[in-house]
């Protein structure tokens, strides 16, 4: 574990990313304390520039505090990002494992299915799904999960496919282990690194997707989110630039942090890099 952290910490960007991510999580956790009450409360005059009347980041067209919106929005963004990633992982890992381990017809069917999903432009599909199931937190999560699982399935399949023919898996076969035991104890743990790295990037993508949906007015109307803030600031950008600038920076920093963390994890988990560092004689 300490070895892992040492390798992780070697990537400066990854450390910065982790710090940002912890900060964002901290803000999300403490939002109700920093900004008590609802982020929807019309706390002041509309269109106040940043810094006026105690509104650190200004107010919106109804006099709502943009800073409070960003703090509360962090909760939604992180929640959507995490939950939809878990859901997509569940689908993707299962299908990918089936395709990669069983191979043959199962592989063919699963991969055709996956390819098909990848052919449909994912954002259009997400919009469609959210619209069909009416915009709520769960439908947004569902839609994001639906469009995000194919890459997971592909990665997991590829990993399983290559691990399946590895000699240690063959050795497990020869030992007479059951299929499930082989998948769980031999294959999955070795496929975990790319899945973890992919998951960190998927959280980032999910946050971007959620914000894009909210931006188009397809977010849960009861939850303050960053995309909503930008969407509501779009039409008044000539009057109140701060309404769209600050939430955008929040998204940017969070997604950037997740990407940096993903790269750090990739460095720390990828044994190939460790090997090349050792040098070849």
């Amino acid at each position: 574990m300490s070895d892992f952290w040492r390798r992780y910490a070697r990537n400066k960007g990854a450390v910065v990313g982790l710090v940002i991510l912890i900060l964002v999580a901290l803000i999300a956790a403490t939002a109700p304390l920093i900004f008590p009450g609802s982020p929807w409360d019309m706390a002041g005059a509309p269109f106040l520039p940043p810094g006026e009347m105690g509104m650190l980041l200004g107010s919106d067209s109804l006099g709502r505090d943009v800073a409070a919106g960003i703090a509360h929005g962090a909760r939604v963004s992180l929640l959507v990002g995490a939950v939809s990633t878990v859901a997509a992982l569940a689908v993707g890992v299962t299908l990918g494992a089936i395709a990669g381990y069983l191979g043959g017809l199962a592989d063919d069917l699963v991969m055709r299915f996956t390819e098909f999903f990848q052919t449909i432009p994912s954002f259009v599909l997400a919009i469609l799904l959210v619209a069909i199931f009416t915009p709520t937190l769960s439908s947004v999560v569902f839609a994001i999960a639906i469009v995000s699982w194919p890459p997971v399935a592909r990665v997991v399949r590829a990993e399983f496919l290559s691990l399946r023919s590895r000699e240690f898996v063959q050795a497990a076969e020869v030992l007479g282990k059951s299929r499930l035991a082989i998948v769980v104890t031999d294959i999955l743990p070795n496929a975990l690194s790319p899945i973890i790295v992919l998951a960190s990037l998927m959280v980032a993508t999910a946050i971007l997707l959620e914000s894009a949906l909210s931006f188009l007015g397809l977010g849960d109307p009861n939850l303050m989110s960053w995309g909503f803030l930008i969407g509501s600031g779009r039409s008044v950008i000539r009057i109140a630039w701060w309404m769209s600038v600050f939430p955008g920076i929040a998204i940017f920093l969070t997604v950037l942090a997740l990407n940096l963390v993903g790269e750090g994890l990739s460095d720390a988990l990828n044994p190939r890099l460790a090997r090349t560092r050792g040098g070849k004689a």
Partner: protein
Amino acid sequence: MSLLTVEGLTVALPPGAERPHAITDITLQVDRGEILCVVGESGSGKSITANAVMGLLPKALPRQAGRILLEGQELTGLGPEALRRLRGDRMAMIFQEPMTALNPLMRVGDQIAEVLEVHGAGARARDRVPELLAAVNLPDPGSLARAHPFRLSGGQRQRVMIAMALALEPALLIADEPTTALDVTTQMQILRLVREIQTRRGMGVMFITHDFGVVAEIADRVVVMQHGRIVEQGAADEVLNRPQHPYTRALIAAVPHGAPQARAAMATPVVLAAQGVAKTYRRGGWFGPRATVRAVHDADFVLRRGETLGLVGESGSGKSTLARCVVDLVKPEAGRMLFHGQDLRPLSRAARKPFRQRIQMVFQDPFASLNPRRRVGEIIAEGPITHGTPRAAALARARDLLALVQLDPGAMDRYPHEFSGGQRQRIGIARALAMEPELLIADEPVSALDVSVQAQVLKLLADIRGRLGLTMLFITHDLRVAAQVCDRVAVMQQGAIVEQGPTDQVFGAPRHPYTRQLLDSIPGRGWTPPDLQDPQA
């Protein structure tokens, strides 16, 4: 004046590596018209030396001291552009892996022409390509020049590499393990080609290899390297037959040797009998063209208790597939696989489970055959646990087995990556033995190991086999190893067993032309390693 002179060459390793220098104080010469073999195990610094001469060292490995002179010109002081002009023109290099050494997207002819073009041959470059290809004995040079590398076999690619290297008739050819990745028959052809061209043109050749057989086949002089230093150099005959340095002596002692001894035919019961086993691979999807490969067909053999049967053949001959058919890693579509008279082939996964204990396997790649995420103790114990042995008992037995394969019991709680290749192979053997099998399938168990480690593992296998009375199916491409280990051998070619019989008979009086060809191709066949006491063992 020597063609190539290397004096006191020292190349640093990046900080934090296991030793400060990749190579230390290397001094050697290559004369015109001679082949200098640089021999050593992996990590000895022989490739670094070659690359240093070519000026192809990566940035992370800077030259710290020493001089390199080619035809009297000092290379070490030259700028990158001047060095570039010399590469391909006055000195050329060929590499170990012919499958990846050619640009997959460029036609063979273009790649050869490129050498000429970048050295100023201009438009005429292309015209010379067929002639160059013909010079390395490639058939139909005209159409071959228009082919892409993927259409060529490994041996053909290596010939292309040689044609490319020789295009401008360089004074010095550096060959970095050029035959290691090739089958023995191809290897012999390439070795002969190198020798022939070298003689014809009077080039100096610096030939890097780990194989003393190759050294014996081709070398005029030999340099032996260990841990980045030259430990011994001299005329081939001297070094091969009267090695001085303990390391050289150890290496030569480790070369499998000794003529196969006549052994009494066994009369023990038959453990395994394969009858008409066949396996065909089909490729191609719903829309693509179908291709079928008959990996194994009509395979018949018997294996008696206590006996070691060698399956020998070149890559693609089907020997590994056949071995995997025995343990059901590959499902044959025809034939019978009788284990003590019972056909294993139709058995379901569950019905086969009891037999799993009795047939075990040791794999080729010591780096890939152990689950990197599990501790060594668990790896060894999990087989018995799967078959119902209590965990504590299985772990205790794993400890004993570690001792049996000469590993420290402290290894139990460590992960595979903390061990060397030879140690891992011992762990792999311990895993197989934990099941107390009757039959052990050994699939190229020593091919990935350095020669000295190889000898140790073979010795271990021989010991264990003797102590436990194992029956063994031993797959190898190395005829020297087969001769040393096997009671009987079966020679496979293109999926079929072309000849089988007692080892001494097959090797001593081969009946099938292919067997003869294989035996003729053993490098250094004319050299019998001297009988040395292994001072290190």
